[in-house]
């Protein structure tokens, strides 16, 4: 369903000299989605985000938001706002002044500025820190301030550049809940760059997997996870085995693999690793063609029929669990 606030990338290209950072990508972000750009470092996801934000000139193609080509506009006029990886809070300004910065640039009067900034701080639960300096805040608090500062401009699209990477794991899980809540409350598009597949799966309505300057696969989070289109996506998204069979490569989720006796199974192999993970046990097996596959069994299944290292086993899966991969 198209709306007039959709964000569309049309043949968007970024070249640095001869190096191509983003190679003519096309994608439509529907209004109000939480989208994650997922990929390894150097895949072009950050360049893409910075081109949408206007901090990186577009080499070719365009960024269309709300029916207008915004690729030549200054960042503040685009209807986007960016939250920087290092938060980029102004160290000499208090929390309130940081949040109200864009209003001050627009010469809004001081009372309105303060009132609006406090509203935004309320949204991210930071009102009690309004008069502190950024250096007096923890990483998570700084991030909330950065979020408030980005949101005060009332953007249609919020761009987040690896927003959780500087936080410790516990805080990361909490902040991702917070991001999701804000996105629902504000009903605007969030585009979140990350290299963490768990982060993308936890947050995103839509995942765009990038590799080597191109979009490898895009779609709803479940669709991408359940049916990775390429070997790269299957490996990057995790919890999949890429198995080369005579009829071609297929991806099979680790938890879809069943351990059986060696006879009659699709693959025969020898167990090379048993790793206990609490709720699950991961079995690694070496199979024909010098391949290694991993099966994830629930602890009940495994301890019901324990296997030892070096044991010959068969690996089997439901025909519907295997997805042929595009090469």
């Amino acid at each position: 369903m198209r709306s007039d606030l959709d964000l569309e990338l049309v043949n968007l290209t970024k070249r640095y000299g001869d190096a191509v950072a983003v190679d003519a990508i096309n994608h439509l972000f529907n209004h109000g989605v939480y989208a994650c750009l997922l990929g390894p470092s150097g895949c072009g996801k950050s360049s893409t985000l910075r081109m949408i934000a206007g901090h990186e000139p577009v080499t070719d193609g365009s960024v269309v938001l709300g029916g207008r080509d915004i690729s030549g506009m200054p960042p503040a006029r685009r209807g986007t706002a960016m939250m920087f990886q290092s938060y980029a809070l102004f160290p000499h300004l208090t929390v309130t002044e940081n949040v109200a910065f864009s209003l001050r640039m627009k010469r809004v009067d001081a009372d309105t500025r303060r009132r609006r900034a406090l509203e935004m701080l309320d949204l991210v639960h930071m009102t009690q820190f309004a008069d502190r300096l950024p250096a007096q805040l923890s990483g998570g608090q700084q991030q909330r301030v950065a979020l408030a500062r980005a949101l005060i401009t009332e953007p249609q699209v919020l761009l987040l550049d690896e927003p959780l990477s500087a936080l410790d794991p516990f805080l990361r899980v909490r902040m991702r809940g917070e991001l999701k809540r804000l996105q629902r409350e504000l009903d605007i598009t969030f585009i979140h760059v990350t290299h963490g597949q768990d982060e993308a799966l936890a947050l995103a309505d839509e995942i765009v997997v990038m590799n080597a300057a191109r979009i490898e696969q895009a779609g709803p989070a479940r669709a991408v996870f359940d049916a990775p289109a390429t070997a790269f996506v299957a490996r990057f998204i995790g919890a999949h085995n890429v198995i080369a069979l005579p009829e071609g490569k297929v991806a099979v989720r680790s938890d879809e693999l069943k351990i059986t006796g060696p006879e009659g199974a699709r693959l025969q192999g020898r167990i090379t690793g048993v790793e206990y993970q609490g709720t699950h046990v991961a079995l690694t097996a070496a199979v024909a063609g010098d391949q290694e596959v991993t099966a994830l069994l629930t602890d009940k299944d495994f301890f019901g029929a324990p296997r030892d290292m070096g044991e010959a086993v068969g690996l089997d899966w439901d025909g519907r669990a295997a997805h042929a991969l595009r090469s």
Partner: protein
Amino acid sequence: MTPGAPAIPFRAGAPSSNETPAMTDQAIAKPAVRTRVSASRLGALSHHAAGWLLAAPLALVLAVFLVLPIVMIVIVSFWGATEFSIYPDFQWDNYRFLFGSDVTYRVFLNTFKYAAITWAFTLLIGFTVAYFLAFHVRTLGWQVALFLLCTIPFWTSNIIRMISWIPFLGRNGLANSTLISWGVIDEPLEWLLFSDFSVILAFVHLYTLFMVVPIFNTMMRIDRSLIEAASDAGASGWQTLWHVVIPLTKPGIMIGTIFVVTLVMGDFITVRFMSGSQSANVGRLISNDIGLLQYPSASATAVILLITVLMVIGILLRFVDIRKEL
């Protein structure tokens, strides 16, 4: 891997995958390794004694070459003098004469005037040069090259740099003859040389680099994403300069200001050469006294100058906290 995450990513058949999400997370979560220098190497010495010993060499150098001379100057400033002799004494005559003469006030005022005007020009030029180097020159190689270019004048001595202005600015100098040949003026400009103009020109020429260096240094530490954040918030170039760059550059500006103000206030040779001995500042007052062997009087003036400069620095430091820069 985030705690409580349901599954561990497997990548069968990808043994050489260089960046896996799980690995990256672990790298971040890994606690920083801290190295600690053990104090036990200092043997039987207690921390206390070791600290004193470590501080002693510098303390000794400062005591002999800084504190002692200043104490000497203060002592001598209370001595008495006649036309042909100096005698140890404790009298306030030197100070009484200094504060009783309106020459002193005029000369101090003139010194402040030189300092203020030179400061304004060096700040303007220094800030601009530093800004250009830090924000417009993209590559480090060019930054270093252009920075070295700025220091080339320092390969010769102060005096030579100063004197080389004379043939340029003189009555029949390059500047005047060029202007006359262009028909801009009919007769030579008298104020080009041996005037306040030439004094300040020489000061600005000599000391601008002392403003460039600390400002450039602070600017290089400004996180570039702050500039992007400002433009993301709709700040124009001038607004970014005024609301972000200048406030964050203040410590550097202050250090440069202290350099320039103290150098100009303590100078005597530039004023003598470039004013053709027609203007005076406190430095020349002291130098004249020394020339006449009036050491007690020179000392008294020096003590007052020192106090004045320290007061100026004290006031400057009230505005900006430079400790984080040092």
